[in-house]
């Protein structure tokens, strides 16, 4: 096991060295894919058989060797990493050669994430975490020498430094005895120390996972990178942050933590889910839409995590395991369909030449494979039965509904409110996915480039089909997959905790609710098929093609081959109802309407500027404060030599006086 992991990690380092030279990028990416598959293999072994106990490495900080281990929790997330990485890397190998810096940073990115997952002491974990941040930043910066992308990279790096430092502080308070996980478990923190740990971990890992209000970098940074990187960031990196959260909040502090620990997570998670789903309906860049949907899903997952903490704190182990199962399963499902969606978006961007929905449309005719995969992914993301997204969100909603079993009325009310918010987020996600599909793949092409786009072929198509097949598998076999997490659940909730699984169904032990994905899929297929047969038996006429009725509009003039572009709803137009009704929850919106003057041939226009409240209410004020303080500090510099001398003199005199005074007292 150790040899396998070590071989993969070393291989990654070697590949990054090869990547520096910029030669043979395909080799680099395929090699990374192999290494990622190796991780997946190790994870599978650890999940089915037994993992790896904490082992000391020859390298490490001066005061103690680094420890690595592979327990069920790590293995589960390592599996997620592999699930995302393999298709993404195949896609990368199928794409044109990137700049050398990217070829060098990509393996390091993978290695960093893997290091976080297998680390068994704080230093190694922090090392991997920072490596992950740094490499992913390099991946963004390498693509954007100038312009907005550069500012994005800067913002991302600043947030990365912030989360790293917060995690360091969190460990500092968590581990008075030593950084080894075993030592921390032996002496769990209590009282205000524990509370500080909670806050710092929420700041550190939370900002990495995109929790509000530290989500603002995510919708900018994830789309800025190359498509495979975006897939890895959205599918795997946020999960690594989630893993850190679980490790530091659920595992290391021990089971003795109070129930209220979950409440901040629930609140932040719900807010994040709402904001993310809302923004997903308003973005005008397909990859940004997907990044916002990542926010939504992370929000849901964190809500589940909070519920698990609440239930565990109030001694409702079965419910805690239910919520935890929802968390773990949704993490995996989201990895599957988000990778699929990002790769589809990348295929569209590279083949149809744009990421702006207003320059796409009607792609289903030209790229049926991509469209099919995208629909599958979108349906999963919209949590439609019987696809994978629904199974895990069913678990999550059930655990929210079960929130009333906690004796605290306040928690019951919070659960109800959260349920409402989560439901809203789920609805918004569905709306966003419909908007995405409708704008990109359905309707009429909006540009000639979109009308002439080729379909994905070769390895790119394989890279799309892989996660698609996986999502389908996860949809039907949700229960068996979930039973693999039994080890992790026992590890976190005690020996008698069980995954809410019975055979091929997901069940709630006492509440008697049950979801059988296979049955639903079967019945649905049956219903659709029978309906189709019946209808076709009664009416067998082949359909004919005519110009669209279009509510009576005249057919477009010949110089508009794809019809009148103005008579097809735009991205903003589709977002308008939601923007009007909910937009201001998450965004500061400025709408300006320029009406067409009588006799003026110009068309009337509506100009909408939106900015996330995270910027306007948090980041900008902080930046102003920082500027003011640095101006203060700078004022000290512009002094003459004699002032500086007198500063030294004053310090001396002050200290002398202080000593004299202290010796009196």
């Amino acid at each position, binding site marked *: 096991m150790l040899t396998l992991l070590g071989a993969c990690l070393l291989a990654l380092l070697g590949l990054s060295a090869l990547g520096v030279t910029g030669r043979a990028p395909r080799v680099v990416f395929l090699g990374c894919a192999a290494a990622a598959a190796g991780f997946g293999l190790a994870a599978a072994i650890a999940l089915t058989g037994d993992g790896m106990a904490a082992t000391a490495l020859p390298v490490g900080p001066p005061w103690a060797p680094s420890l690595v281990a592979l327990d069920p929790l790590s293995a589960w997330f390592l599996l997620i990493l592999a699930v995302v990485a393999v298709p993404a890397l195949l896609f990368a190998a199928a794409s044109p050669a990137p700049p050398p810096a990217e070829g060098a940073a990509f393996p390091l990115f993978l290695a960093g994430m893997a290091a976080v997952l297998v680390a068994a002491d704080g230093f190694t974990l922090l090392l991997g975490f920072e490596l992950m941040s740094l490499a992913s930043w390099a991946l963004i910066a390498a693509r954007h020498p*100038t312009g907005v992308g550069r500012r994005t990279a800067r913002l991302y790096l600043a947030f990365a430094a912030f989360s790293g430092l917060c995690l360091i502080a969190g460990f*500092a*308070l968590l581990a008075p005895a030593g950084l080894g996980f075993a030592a921390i478990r032996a002496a769990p923190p209590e009282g205000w120390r524990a509370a500080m740990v909670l806050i710092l971990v929420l700041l550190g890992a939370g900002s990495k996972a995109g929790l509000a209000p530290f989500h603002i970098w995510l919708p900018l940074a994830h789309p800025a990178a190359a498509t495979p990187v975006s897939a890895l960031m959205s599918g795997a990196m946020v999960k690594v942050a989630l893993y850190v959260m679980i490790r530091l909040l659920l595992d290391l502090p021990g089971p003795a933590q109070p129930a209220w620990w979950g409440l901040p997570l629930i609140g932040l998670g719900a807010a994040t889910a709402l904001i993310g789903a809302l923004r997903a309906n308003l973005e005008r860049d397909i990859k940004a839409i997907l990044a916002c949907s990542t926010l939504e899903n992370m929000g849901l997952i964190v809500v589940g995590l909070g519920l698990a903490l609440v239930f565990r704190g109030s001694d409702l182990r079965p419910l805690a395991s239910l919520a935890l199962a929802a968390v773990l399963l949704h993490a995996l499902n989201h990895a599957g369909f988000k990778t699929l969606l990002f790769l589809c978006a990348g295929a569209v961007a590279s083949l149809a030449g744009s990421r702006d929905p207003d320059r796409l449309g009607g792609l289903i005719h030209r790229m049926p494979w991509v469209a099919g995969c995208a629909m599958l992914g979108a349906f999963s993301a919209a949590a439609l039965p019987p696809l994978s997204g629904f199974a895990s969100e069913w678990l999550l909603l059930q655990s929210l509904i079960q929130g009333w079993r906690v004796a605290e009325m306040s928690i019951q009310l919070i659960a109800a409110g959260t349920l409402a918010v989560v439901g809203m987020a789920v609805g918004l996600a569905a709306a966003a996915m419909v908007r995405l599909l409708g704008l990109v793949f359905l309707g009429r092409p909006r540009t000639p480039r979109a009308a002439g786009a080729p379909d994905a072929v070769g390895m790119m198509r394989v890279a799309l089909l892989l996660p698609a097949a996986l999502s389908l598998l996860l949809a039907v076999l949700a229960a068996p997959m979930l039973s693999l997490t039994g080890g992790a659940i026992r590890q976190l909730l005690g020996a008698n905790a069980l995954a809410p699984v019975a055979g091929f169904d997901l069940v709630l032990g006492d509440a008697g609710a049950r979801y059988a994905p296979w049955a639903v899929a079967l019945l649905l297929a049956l219903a659709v098929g029978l309906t189709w047969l019946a209808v076709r038996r009664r009416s067998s006429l082949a359909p004919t093609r005519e110009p669209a009725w279009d509510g009576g509009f005249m057919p477009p003039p010949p110089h508009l081959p794809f019809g009148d572009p103005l008579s097809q709803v735009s991205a903003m137009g589709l977002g308008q109802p939601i923007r009007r009704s909910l937009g201001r929850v998450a965004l500061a919106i400025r709408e300006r309407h320029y009406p067409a003057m009588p006799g003026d041939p110009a068309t009337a226009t509506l100009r909408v500027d939106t900015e996330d409240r995270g910027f306007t209410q948090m980041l900008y004020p902080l930046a102003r404060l920082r500027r003011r303080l640095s101006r203060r500090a*700078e004022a*000290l*510099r512009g002094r003459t030599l004699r002032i500086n001398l007198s500063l030294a003199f004053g310090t*001396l005199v002050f200290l002398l006086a202080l000593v004299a005074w202290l010796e009196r007292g």
Partner: protein
Amino acid sequence: MSLAAALVLLPLLAAVLLALLPDRASRLNIVASGATLLLAILLVLTEPGGDGLLRADALNMPLVLIAAIVGFGTAIFSEQDVAYEMFDRRRARFYHAGFQGFMAAHFLALLSDNLGVMWVAIEAGTLACVLMVALHRTPAAIEAAWKFFILCGVGIALALFGIIVLALAAQPLLGHGEQLSFLALRAVAARADPGLLNLAFIFLLVGFGTKAGLVPLHSWLPDAHAEGPTPIAAVLSGLLLNGAMLGILRGKAIVGTNPAVISPGSFLIVLGFITLLLAAFSLWRRRDAKRLFGWSSIEHMGIVAVAFGIGGVPGHMAGLLHLWGHSLVKSAAFFAIGRAARMKGGQGIESIAGLTTTHPALGWGLALAMAALAGLPPFSLFASEVLLAMETGRERPWLLPLLILGLLVAGTALLHAMQRLCFGLPTPEPIPARSGLATLLPLWVNLLLAAILALAMPEPLARMLLEAARLLA
């Protein structure tokens, strides 16, 4: 003659030689530094100890090694850099002689067991640096050098007074001659008069603190770094500050043994945090690349002061490790930025950009060095900061937020500048040239060493680190 003595005399000899025969001076300089490095390695491999005047112990041996490494790298770098200076014969001769002279003084300062000798050595080194800072004779250089001279002159004088007070405190307990010996003082300080010890530590703190660039005694540091030749900036940051910190550390080690004194650590913590925070916020306003690194030196000295102030074995370990890493990385950063400034024909931040695209090796080296200074892995500054945070969390948790704030503001400022210098669209180069091995070699070697310190420190060094921390705690 002991290795330690040889280590002091060899650079001295080299200085004399360089003063006498200036042609091919830079080669001779490199050779001498290389020989010094060999001696230093030998010294580290041998057992600690030595005669009365010079004593090699776990505390100063690693510092000697680092100093020799940085000195060797600087010699290699200046071989290329001085060529641009257009020095006349006299100044070139003076430059090289002064460099070796400074090295000799620094080794003496590190190795001497006698505080008085240490003081003399530091003063001599300072004077050498002052002259080399003034080497350019530009108004800015004169201003910087004069400030350097006056402030450090005052500071060093105060430090001497502190030493005298120490001697006075030890007078009733120690025989003549050895009342300035570090070991002897440490042995008897517990019985000395705490009042005098307090007084002594105040003066030592203010005196050496001025040289170490602790706020509010720091104002000479950035200008001195920016106006002198780049190699001098490298040794200033890499070596001189270590010497000063060692002085403070010795004082603390002596005074701290007496239970009745006002704990010296608290003074260090307060000054350290003031330094850290002020430098962190000032870093955001820098327009001059070399001053940026000067301020970052101030910030790191603040971190070191905090680490030593918090104390305990881990705290001192963190502080020492931070000193080592800072010397290596900061000198590397100065090599890179000096070379870049040469090629771009100016050391203003706005005049340097896009290094990674035009000179990948140099650009990525600088980027990594700055990332390391910002406390990112895999460099030893990251390790020491983690260790410091751990110790703070254990001993004084309420200081954590301040520490995190300082590190965050400083780190983001450095990363911000890093992206401006190394990425973006390249600025035009009046003097198009290749980076050259003379820069890349020391740059990457130092970075590699810093990474090794963080992840795979050789066992003897690790043992010395622990030993030194025990000695101090």
